[in-house]
């Protein structure tokens, strides 16, 4: 390994490391625009010039590999002069419009001009102007500000796998553009805004509404999909202005999907900010005591076996455990957290986890995706698969919905029959999996949320066992969830008890009059019209399908408005923080359940968040450890029996609208209009779409 000294400090690094990376390891700051640690090296901004002994000219440290005995200096007068020169060139064509630029205050160019530039320029001629481009409803462009670092081109080509951006023309006439000036059809396009070191690409929905220094930053986790990406919620007053990703190498690296990033305007619309009681067919505003009293009065004398609860896709674990305890104390076994009817079981934890872990995707060498469109269901996870594929040596195949996932794969078939063939060893891909060092199976909800889901789960288990996916130090059996609440719900056993009904059973029971009261915890994807004359209590944040059907509406908190726990698809227990307070009279959901339990005369034995969390850990010890994805033990699960011939269908019809928040978001509505037919992977609606 080469040894070198940078500014007199010796360091030994792996061969192939660049000078800039070595300097970063030492904590020596070298300014840069085009270099980004997760993108290919371009070496075109020249801001990272340093002096190396015995080299005649300053060298671009981002693109220069270290050599044995190199003596690098980053703080000589020569380096300072070189940086000033580069900065002066960059500012020749960059407009000095910082006061009206949204990037102002968090702009790399601004900061580095302050730190490394001169206080005046010598250029008096006309600056160039570039026509703005149309990148779609999410990204505002000011192409005159572009310094042509090409980070956006590299990101969209390498990470997102959608090679739509390029640098057209040459020299002074070079412009960044999409092919035919089309909108960028990627689920990860918002990351371009973070990557752009200047104000050329900015947040369109939030443009001109904030200055970065006005915002309060709260570190939290995302609840818009099953991934649980690390996010930072930027707020001003009691308003969420924007959501940005935080770095978490285990989950999202530093990327975030467009829905998670841009649906935040949905937090301002369609909100439930007070209680409502249905009177004479219309929802009338009510105060908390009245609403709780109305529920207690209606449930008085109703046998527990006629009460049911369904949890939605964004419910937090505190609420789930409170609701489960309440149902237990009432004596009802009818509760379910699998709104879509996925045939998942709670007995073996490994049966419903993404056991390989997201970071583990980078180790697999043979991948079978079953019943899932990973690009729409978890774009950030899909970027990991692409990253793995780009490294070479990955054989991937798909059973179920096919599409452009950004990694090369073979399409084997569309339904359970193909899966059965592979599981029985009668398909060539069986041998591929068997021969692989770390084979992996991604099982989507599209394969499980169907009548023969249990049999499909059984087939998948057989396949995993016979191909050696489950072994010491590796478990390739990976269930990809689309709902943030799902794994937490299964961990807490929020499933039908002895003799209990599942979601389909509850709905059928309500229609038949056998279920008299249904609690919906933010569950909006249930067939509302089928609930018959049941008394429906909706606890949630948005006036979506559930609230429209409800007899009593209790306003709850959205995921940015509570300190709460979610478990991601890998089984990683993560805690979100309160960034803003719930609007109006809305309360954190578990507190509402606690208050409800009091009104029903069965008070839950906890009054504070700490006690609820103790209860969580008591119900399932996994809740005692935050942030880790612990390996789960293998066991027997899944059903047998015949599988149907119907093809697998991805659960996501429209990537931009999957939950009450994104359905209330104007930005997501614009995306749906812009990307129209291409935003979903299966264009026919299924019964679970509210």
């Amino acid at each position, binding site marked *: 390994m080469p040894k070198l000294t940078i500014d007199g400090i010796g360091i030994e690094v792996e061969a192939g490391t660049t000078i800039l990376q070595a300097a970063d390891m030492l904590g020596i700051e070298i300014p840069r625009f085009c270099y980004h640690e997760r993108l290919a090296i371009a070496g075109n901004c020249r801001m990272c010039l340093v002096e190396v002994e015995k080299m005649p000219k300053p060298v671009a440290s981002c693109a220069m590999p270290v050599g044995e005995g190199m003596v690098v200096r980053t703080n000589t007068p020569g380096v300072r002069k070189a940086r000033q020169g580069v900065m002066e060139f960059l500012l020749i064509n960059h407009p000095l419009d910082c006061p009206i630029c949204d990037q102002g205050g968090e702009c790399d160019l601004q900061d580095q001009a302050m730190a490394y530039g001169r206080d005046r320029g010598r250029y008096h001629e006309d600056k160039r102007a570039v026509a703005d481009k149309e990148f779609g409803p999410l990204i505002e462009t000011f192409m005159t500000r572009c310094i042509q670092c090409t980070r956006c081109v590299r990101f969209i*080509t390498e990470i997102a796998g959608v*090679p*739509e951006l*390029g*640098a*057209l*023309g040459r020299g002074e006439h070079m412009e960044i553009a*999409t*092919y035919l000036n089309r909108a960028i059809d990627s689920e990860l396009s918002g990351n371009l805004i973070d990557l752009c070191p200047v104000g050329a690409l900015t947040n369109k929905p939030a443009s001109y509404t904030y200055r970065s220094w006005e915002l309060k930053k709260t570190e939290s986790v995302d609840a818009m999909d099953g991934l649980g990406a690390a996010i930072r919620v930027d707020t001003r007053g009691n308003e969420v202005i924007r959501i940005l990703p935080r770095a978490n190498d285990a989950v999202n690296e530093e990327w975030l999907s467009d829905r998670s990033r841009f649906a935040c305007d949905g937090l301002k619309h369609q909100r439930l900010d007070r209680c409502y009681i249905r009177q004479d067919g219309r929802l009338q505003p009510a105060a908390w005591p009245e609403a709780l009293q109305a529920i207690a009065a209606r449930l008085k004398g109703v046998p527990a076996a006629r009460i049911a609860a369904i949890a939605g896709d964004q419910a937090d674990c505190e609420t789930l455990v409170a609701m489960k305890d309440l149902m237990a104390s009432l004596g009802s076994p009818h509760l379910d957290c699998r709104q879509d009817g996925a045939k998942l079981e709670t007995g073996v934890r490994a049966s419903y986890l993404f056991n390989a872990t997201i970071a583990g995707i980078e180790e697999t060498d043979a991948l079978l995706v079953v019943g899932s469109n990973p690009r729409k269901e978890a774009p950030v996870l899909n970027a990991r698969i692409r990253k793995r594929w780009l490294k070479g040596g990955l054989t991937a195949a798909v059973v179920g919905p096919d599409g452009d996932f950004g990694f090369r794969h073979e399409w084997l078939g569309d339904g359970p029959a193909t899966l059965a063939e592979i599981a029985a060893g009668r398909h060539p891909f069986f041998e591929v999996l068997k021969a692989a060092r770390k084979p992996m199976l991604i099982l989507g909800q599209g394969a499980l949320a169907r009548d023969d889901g249990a049999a499909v789960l059984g087939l998948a288990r057989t396949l995993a066992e016979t191909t050696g996916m489950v072994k010491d130090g590796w478990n390739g059996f990976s269930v990809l969830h689309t709902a943030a609440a799902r794994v937490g719900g299964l961990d807490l056993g929020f499933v039908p008890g002895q003799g209990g009904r599942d979601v389909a059973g509850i709905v059928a029971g309500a229609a038949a009059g056998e279920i008299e009261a249904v609690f919906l915890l933010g569950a909006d994807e249930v067939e509302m019209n089928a609930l018959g004359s049941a008394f429906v209590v909706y606890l949630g944040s948005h006036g979506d399908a559930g609230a429209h059907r409800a007899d009593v509406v209790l306003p709850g908190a959205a995921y940015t408005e509570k300190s709460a726990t979610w478990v991601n698809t890998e089984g990683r227990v993560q805690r979100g923080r309160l960034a803003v307070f719930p609007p109006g009279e809305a309360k954190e959901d578990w507190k509402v359940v606690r208050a409800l339990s009091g009104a029903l005369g069965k008070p839950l034995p906890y009054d504070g968040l700490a006690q609820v969390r103790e209860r969580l850990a008591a119900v399932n010890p996994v809740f005692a450890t935050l942030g880790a994805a612990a390996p789960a033990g293998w066991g027997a699960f899944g059903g047998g029996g015949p599988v149907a011939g119907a093809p697998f269908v991805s659960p996501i019809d429209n990537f931009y609208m999957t939950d009450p928040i994104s359905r209330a978001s104007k930005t997501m509505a614009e995306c749906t209009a812009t990307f129209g037919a291409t935003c979903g992977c299966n264009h026919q609606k299924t019964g679970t779409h509210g």
Partner: protein
Amino acid sequence: MTNPEPATFAFTPENLARAKAIIAKYPEGRQQSAVMPLLDLAQRQDGWVTRAAMETIADMLEMAPIRVEEVATFYTMYNRRPMGRHHVQVCTNICCQLRGSDGVGAAVKQELGVEWGETTEDGAFTLSEVECLGACVNAPMMQVGDDYYEDLTPDGARAVLKALKQGDAPKPGPQNGRQFSAPEGGPTTLTDLPLGTEKA
């Protein structure tokens, strides 16, 4: 302005065979290297590089259309707009200018009745002002299609264009009787050496 972009593009059978031969020159997995000769081939077929041609080439080489467009817009010799049958490129760089390219340019403009960058109404000529074409020793010069016409005078340039208008093929090279870039009026040294059949 109407969009001149045709909806489709297809190589002629002849050119398709040529394209396949070009692609075959590159090792497996490196077919994208053929993008530049293929763009040239398409331009020779249509006179300019159409969007449909870029998309066809992108398909043939399994690359994104934007990557092809990047190449086609980077190089000035790929024309991204319809061109006349003859592309007249007059050099106005320093050597040609010192040797009278201003007069050549004016004569060409007058003869064709168009300004720089324009195409004649009959679609026969497109006139461009270009940077150095590397024939300074024979300045001033202009390029028509693939051929260089050198040692021009305003009248010489007119004569070339007149011949082209009549459908003739004027002889490329120096228009003042000079042998290539040998001294005007014949060799001044090594005069006793036998010269080949190309003797001026």
